[in-house]
């Protein structure tokens, strides 16, 4: 039925376009001069029909589920849902839904069957209503726009205004996404802090997000101190940067200064491949090759290395970040005016001296900006650490040990079924908030450095 509504809309758009086009042609054939081209009259009708009806259908589809659900809930026998938690209510609703879908397990109570029947009938009413309203709306809009076809009507301006409005709408989507991110994070984090004190979260040194299965369990009370998680993130990010910065910088210097254009044309794309490999692949690479290699190396040296050592995750993450840093450094070196480089070489400096004493200092802001962006990526990187790093939060800075990170905790807390009223789920949002704020600050800072530096030479 939904598809049917969209088909009606499509047909209405075509009909409106043709009607207005013909009307405009008829006027023109009568010898009158029109303000706008015929196509604009047609397009005006098409757009005026399309835009409101399309949003009407989308809105209807988005809201019908919630509205029908609340109607079902209201129609249940009095007192059925009294004193039940949200989880139990959801369970009942999904049972009613599956009965309505024809999947009956066991012998459900009569009121459930009744509710399911009502659900089916409400659903069909809703989609019927949607089709009827779509027809009415499109017909009305077609008639309305058909009347506008006159010689002096400025159809082109009308079309352009609508298109401009749509484009402004598209541009603000980005803002709505940001509002959505900040809004959802703040909202859920606020609810988290209603259950767990703010200071416990920020300064607590123990992270044990298990919640008790029974009321009388003592062992797992749950502790939400983010410091060890944060520390683990830093350990892995540091390992990654120790790998990525020298390799990235030196390869950028080589590419920029020593490589011939031909070699450069081969090496650069190959390095870019490293950046294009999905992170889940790196994660698997870390557990398949790197972690066993590090372990056997450590055993040879007699070092105690944890199976999911921070070293493996950090090392692979570092490899992933190499092209990122090298391309930023390459851009920064290329942005230094040629005159500086030529001047240094003309004075008799070697290429190495030119780089280390002239180009590098001039490019340092751009390079630092790139490194900062890489740090923010290392902090926010998820799949490598989810697969290769540990789950248990420890207060340690030993990279041979197993540590956990903010992103690992977010994913492990939210995998599986999630209820939005347990501190365990909400803790993930609080960690997400920390992650978002941290990366945002680093990004803004880095982008500012990069931009400010570019202005000097442009």
């Amino acid at each position, binding site marked *: 039925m939904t598809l049917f509504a969209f088909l009606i809309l499509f047909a209405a758009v075509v009909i409106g376009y043709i009607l207005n086009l013909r009307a405009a042609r008829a006027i023109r054939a009568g010898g009158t001069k029109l303000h706008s081209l015929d196509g604009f009259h047609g397009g005006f009708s098409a757009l005026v029909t399309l835009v409101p009806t399309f949003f009407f259908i989308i809105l209807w589809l988005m809201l019908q589920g919630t509205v029908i659900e609340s109607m079902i809930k209201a129609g249940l026998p009095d007192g059925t849902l009294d004193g039940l938690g949200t989880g139990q209510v959801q369970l009942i609703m999904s049972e009613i839904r599956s009965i309505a879908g024809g999947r009956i397990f066991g012998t459900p109570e009569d009121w459930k069957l009744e509710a399911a029947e009502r659900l089916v009938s409400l659903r069909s009413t809703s989609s019927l209503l949607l089709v009827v309203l779509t027809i009415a709306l499109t017909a009305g809009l077609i008639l309305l726009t058909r009347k506008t076809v006159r010689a002096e009507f400025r159809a082109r301006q009308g079309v352009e205004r609508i298109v401009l409005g749509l484009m402004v709408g598209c541009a603000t989507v980005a803002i709505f996404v940001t509002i959505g991110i900040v809004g959802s994070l703040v909202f859920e984090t606020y609810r988290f802090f209603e259950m767990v004190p703010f200071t416990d979260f920020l300064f607590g040194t123990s992270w044990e997000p298990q919640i008790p299965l029974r009321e009388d369990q003592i062992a797992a009370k749950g502790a939400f101190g983010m410091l060890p998680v944060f520390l683990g993130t830093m350990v892995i990010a540091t390992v990654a940067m120790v790998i990525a910065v020298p390799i990235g910088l030196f390869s950028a210097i080589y*590419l920029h200064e020593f490589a011939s254009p031909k070699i450069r044309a081969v090496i650069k794309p190959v390095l870019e491949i490293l950046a294009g490999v999905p992170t889940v692949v790196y994660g698997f690479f870390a557990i398949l090759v790197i972690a066993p290699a590090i372990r056997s190396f450590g055993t040879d040296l007699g070092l105690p290395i944890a199976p999911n050592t921070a070293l493996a995750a950090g090392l692979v993450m570092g490899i992933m970040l190499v092209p990122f840093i090298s391309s930023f450094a390459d851009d920064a070196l290329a942005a230094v005016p040629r005159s500086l480089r030529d001047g240094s070489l003309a004075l008799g400096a070697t290429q190495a001296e030119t780089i280390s004493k002239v180009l590098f200092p001039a490019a340092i802001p751009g390079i630092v900006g790139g490194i900062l962006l890489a740090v923010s990526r290392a902090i926010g990187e998820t799949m490598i650490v989810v697969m290769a790093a540990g789950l248990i939060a420890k207060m340690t800075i030993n990279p041979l040990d197993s540590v956990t990170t903010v992103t690992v905790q977010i994913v492990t807390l939210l995998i599986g079924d999630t209820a939005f009223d347990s501190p365990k789920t909400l803790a993930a949002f609080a960690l997400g908030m920390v992650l978002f704020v941290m990366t945002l600050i680093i990004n803004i800072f880095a982008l500012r450095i990069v931009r400010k530096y570019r202005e000097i030479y442009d």
Partner: protein
Amino acid sequence: MTDQTSSGSFDWTGPEFTARLNKRKRSQIALKLAGLTAITIAFGMLFLLVASLISTGRHAFTQTFVQIEVFLDPAHIDSDEPNRGNYRQILTDTMVKLFPDVVDDRAELRKLTSMLSNGAQFSIRDSVVADPALIGQTVAVRVPVSDPYDQLNKGLIDRETPEANRRLKDDEIANFDLLKELGMVSKPLNRWLITNADSRFPELAGLKGAIIGSFYALMTCFLLSFPIGIGAAIYLEEFAPKNRVSDLIEININNLAAVPSVVFGLLALAVFLGWFGMPRSAPFVGGMTLALMTLPTIIIATRAALKAVPPSIREAALGVGASKHQVVFGHVLPLAMPGILTGTIIGLAQALGETAPLLLIGMNAFITSAPATPFDSSTALPTQIFIWADSPERGFVSRTSAAILVLLTFLIFMNAIAIFLRNKFERKW
């Protein structure tokens, strides 16, 4: 005139100078070597990555089958209800016929039947359901062997390992070798890797559900992010007045491009699933989430492509009386299209490999059938890789690598299209 040069005060051929010159040359060489080493390390890692994936993944592209003669005993199958027959018993009987000396020992019997994949009984059932006339006949069927034997046949289980540490004991290996000597074992190409959906048993698990799920998600992502991205980019590049609002939007887009992907997952979980009540694990919701992440990439690429169209085109069009909109939609946008498409495909390729946000909206569920619509529960290629990488069975290691190779093939294909578009259509003015 040349008397004033400093060569008088410094000996340009003396040992002190030569030493200094050599030192400078050495540092030059050192820097060059450092650069070469760095590139070698990066290349070496890439090589190691690809090599390890191919060497483990290639095993999953074949599958060991065994050809057996199955007597479809009417005692175990009711011809009225062929899908409820006891096919396990039929297979056991078949194995007993092959190894007549183990009839009584239950443990031995179980060992024998465990040689065949758990899916064997279902594939026989399906062929009987399709043609009930087969009941009572003896049919030759090729059934997959279970994972340990598959590993053995591919040489992944070392026969030299002490028996206690080996997954297959000596007698089990002997049984298998007997079948092999009889010429009943074959190792054809593993179609199931592509045509089957996920399964608990590695020998039956395939990527069909994941590929279709990824396709739906990517389509949704494209349909949402492409028009919205182009609209936003055209507005910002061609129409937006230079004021604080458009500055704000611009800063916003740049920052969104750098937000960690897992945060988009949190957004999708809280807003799409939590507030709007959309279904969990649905590729449609995954596609919406990916669209939010792809949007900044497409906007940035589109703006660059629009900027590259020379002003002379615009001025010529304006000069002959086109309106601003006609200039943009009739001239600038078509000329910028190759660049926009290139950026879009690269953005979609990124979205295809994105895992974390899909995990948070539950696209890592265990689902044994391919989704029929974008609203059904499903996995996606990267989440399937994650699930398989987490599975303890040995057979999933090679399957994970194979799945990664499939994913990388798609990515290479998409990037190749992007490069082709760029080289073929992009104009330099």
